[in-house]
């Protein structure tokens, strides 16, 4: 007990009807690195956000060094000694290292309270830097630093605030190998100094190298905990995935036909390299992998959202030249994006307008819009996917998340596309709506369309897809027949 820096007991959290965390217990000892593993959506970030004071838990208690801890806001969490190092760095670009470290708690000169004592702050920062031997100077501007250096500034900032617990969420995702090695040395050093570190990463080898203990979250529950000596990559993955695939996914009766759509050697020289795959008529192909593996980038390149530098895209054997989404839509490709608010809907505009937006040419309104006909046709498409709306003339943001997603499905049904890409089609929607969407996917496959489903949820990939492609760091690492593979396999290809 005395050695516990942090003790979490019976923590629960629900968003609406979705239980995100359930009776989570977690102990963090001083002077250790504790890795938390879990699939996307297992509840890791929710747990960390509760710890960081972004929102409170519904039930359960937390103790920081034996004292009850319930931060009302992030500032309180920082004062209590919790420091978060996120994937996206949170620094003021145009200020210097010293200014960032002292942001919000600037030193002032003794006589004139409004005058900042820049010399003292710079000097103190420089001392902190040299204590750890970071390759930094106190007066460097953040914008000029590398990602790794900026991360060091974040860490210094945390230390300067007397952090007792350092939470690192995927800290190496933007680092090169040498930079990552540097970071690991620093982490080892912190451990020796008695800091407690929560380390979140999808990279198994890092966890095996760094961690003293491993905890696994699955579907909001802390399902497993072990010292690193008892862990292998295999056991960790098994506990991350380990669940029965319930018969939640409707059966499909599609005849798989000829090759409909193919990409060869797709590259954008940045996020994706050498991606090739085929999709047949009536086939649902899954695209799995971790967040940041380049799955959405593949979809963006196919759909003309981003420029692909090289590679060939063919539809029924014919080469496609796609320079913009308009070209892709004309080639009968549809793309249901992962972020319906940012890239999917015009939320303030009527539902009917959202359905017809890319389809005005297709429904014979290239020159003059017939508002009555438009309303009629949108209503028809909307009813086909069971959108629940008071009226198609209502603004899209009056609908729930699931209904908004159905609205987008209605849009692409109206387009009568042949090849459809669905990026996280069931993210953030309730179970009932999920089932509706799966039924619709089946309907499309049965009608002889080709489907590419990007999903971070393994059960979904296994429940919906005939075949699963796996990506890691911008490359395809596996092409698996669903019936011949296991979630463990997919996870292995995604991580190692």
């Amino acid at each position: 007990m005395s050695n516990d820096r942090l003790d979490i007991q019976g923590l629960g959290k629900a968003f609406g009807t979705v239980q995100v965390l359930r009776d989570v217990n977690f102990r963090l000892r001083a002077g250790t690195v504790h890795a938390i593993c879990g699939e996307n959506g297992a509840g890791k970030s929710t747990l960390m956000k509760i710890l960081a004071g972004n929102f409170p838990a519904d039930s359960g208690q937390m103790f920081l060094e034996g004292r009850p801890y319930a931060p009302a806001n992030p500032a309180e969490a920082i004062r209590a000694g919790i420091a978060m190092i996120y994937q996206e760095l949170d620094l003021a670009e145009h200020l210097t290292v010293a200014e960032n470290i002292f942001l919000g708690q600037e030193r002032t000169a003794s006589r004139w309270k409004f005058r900042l004592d820049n010399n003292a702050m710079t000097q103190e920062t420089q001392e902190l830097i040299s204590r750890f031997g970071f390759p930094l100077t106190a007066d460097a501007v953040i914008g000029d630093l590398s990602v790794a250096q900026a991360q060091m500034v974040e860490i210094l900032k945390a230390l300067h605030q007397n952090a007792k617990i350092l939470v690192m969420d995927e800290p190496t995702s933007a680092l090169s190998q040498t930079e990552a090695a540097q970071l690991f040395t620093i982490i080892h050093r912190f451990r020796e100094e008695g800091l407690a570190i929560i380390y979140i990463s999808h990279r198994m080898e890092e966890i095996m190298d760094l961690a003293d203990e491993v905890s696994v979250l699955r579907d909001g529950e802390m399902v497993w905990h072990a010292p690193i000596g008892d862990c292998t990559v295999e056991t960790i993955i098994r506990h991350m995935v380990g669940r029965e695939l319930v018969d939640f996914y409707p059966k499909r009766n599609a005849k798989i036909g000829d090759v409909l759509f193919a990409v060869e050697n797709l590259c954008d020289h940045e996020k994706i390299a050498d991606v090739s795959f085929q999709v047949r008529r009536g086939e649902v192909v899954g695209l799995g992998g971790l967040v940041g593996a380049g799955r959405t980038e593949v979809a963006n390149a196919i759909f003309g959202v981003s420029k692909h530098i090289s590679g060939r895209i063919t539809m029924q054997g014919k080469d496609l030249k796609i320079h913009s989404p308009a070209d892709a839509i004309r080639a009968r490709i549809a793309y249901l994006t992962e972020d319906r608010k940012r890239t999917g809907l015009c939320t303030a505009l009527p539902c009917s307008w959202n359905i017809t937006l890319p389809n005005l040419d297709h429904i014979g309104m290239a020159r003059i819009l017939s508002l009555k006909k438009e309303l009629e046709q949108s209503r028809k498409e909307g009813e086909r996917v069971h959108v629940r709306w008071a009226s198609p003339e209502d603004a899209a943001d009056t609908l729930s998340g699931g209904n908004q997603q159905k609205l987008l499905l209605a849009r692409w049904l109206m387009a009568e596309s042949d090849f459809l890409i669905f990026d996280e089609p069931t993210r953030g929607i309730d179970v009932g709506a999920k089932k509706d969407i799966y039924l619709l996917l089946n309907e499309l496959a049965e009608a002889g369309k080709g489907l590419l489903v990007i999903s971070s949820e393994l059960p979904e990939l296994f429940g919906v897809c005939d075949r699963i492609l796996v990506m890691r760091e911008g490359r395809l690492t596996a092409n698996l027949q669903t019936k011949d593979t296991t979630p463990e396999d997919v996870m292995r290809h995604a991580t190692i």
Partner: protein
Amino acid sequence: MNKFARQLLPFSSLLFIISLWTCLVPDTFLSFQNISNVLTRSAANGIMACGMTFIIITGGIDLSIGSMLAMTGMLASIVMLMLGGGTWTAICGGEFIAMPLWAMVIGTVAGMVFGGLCGLFNGICITRLKLAPFIVTLGSMSIFRGVSYVLNDGKPFAISAYTYLDTGKLLGIPVPLLLFAIALAGSGFLLKYTKFGRYAYAIGSNITTAFHAGINVNKILVGAYTFMGLLTGLAAMIYSSRASSAQPSAGLSLEMDVIAAVIIGGCSPAGGKGTMTGTLIGTLLISFLRNGLTLLNVSTNLQLIVIGFIIIFAVTADRLAVQGGKKENI
């Protein structure tokens, strides 16, 4: 229902202003001559407001229209006077030059073309250089005004025979009013019943979504600014006709009145919202407001203050209506 409600506030404000003036200055305000004057005078601004409605719906703004109006008026006058046989020195010296009808017709068309080109310039800068409309049109505002002054060293061009767009009547209707009606109906049709208008809404509502839906965003934006230019060119001809000359200082701070009319009519400055009916109401509201204040001998300086407050009030009312009273930080 919602759309109707959005129009309710500007419309009732218009009714309120009209009834207020009717009570305060019944004899002068309600005369046929006065009302007809107000409507005719509001025509040029109203025509520009039609174009501005598109731009604000796309989430943009055009600050250059006042200067553009002066410059296109100047350029069109040169065309007319040259076609009328004037030499450059004669034109610049302000000598009387008899212009045949065809010269005036071509000059009028030229004014619209020049306006369209100015708008095209704005549109291309915004889309190709990827600059904010505010910045581009702030720059071109200065450019166009500068050109207007340079053309004749700060002096106007006299076109005394060019009166038809001011005093002319067709079927008993003043020509400016007729042009306003045509511009309004045409713009209303474009906005509501064509892809151009629909895509303008989509771009203003969410430009990323619009792009993902296969809309050629740049084409629509360039189109909107060019359309604004065309209408500004037309308005410039009405202004020149009214002054019987093209003034390099014409339309100073005119953009303010036009933008105000559109905003008061319910266009959201953030884009994605607005109607031509609203713009008509906004234009009339400002015109009647100014007219009544003038009849009450309120100075134009004081009028500026009143209109400024009304803009702030209109946008606040709009925001409250949208949020349904919800409070949001920042």
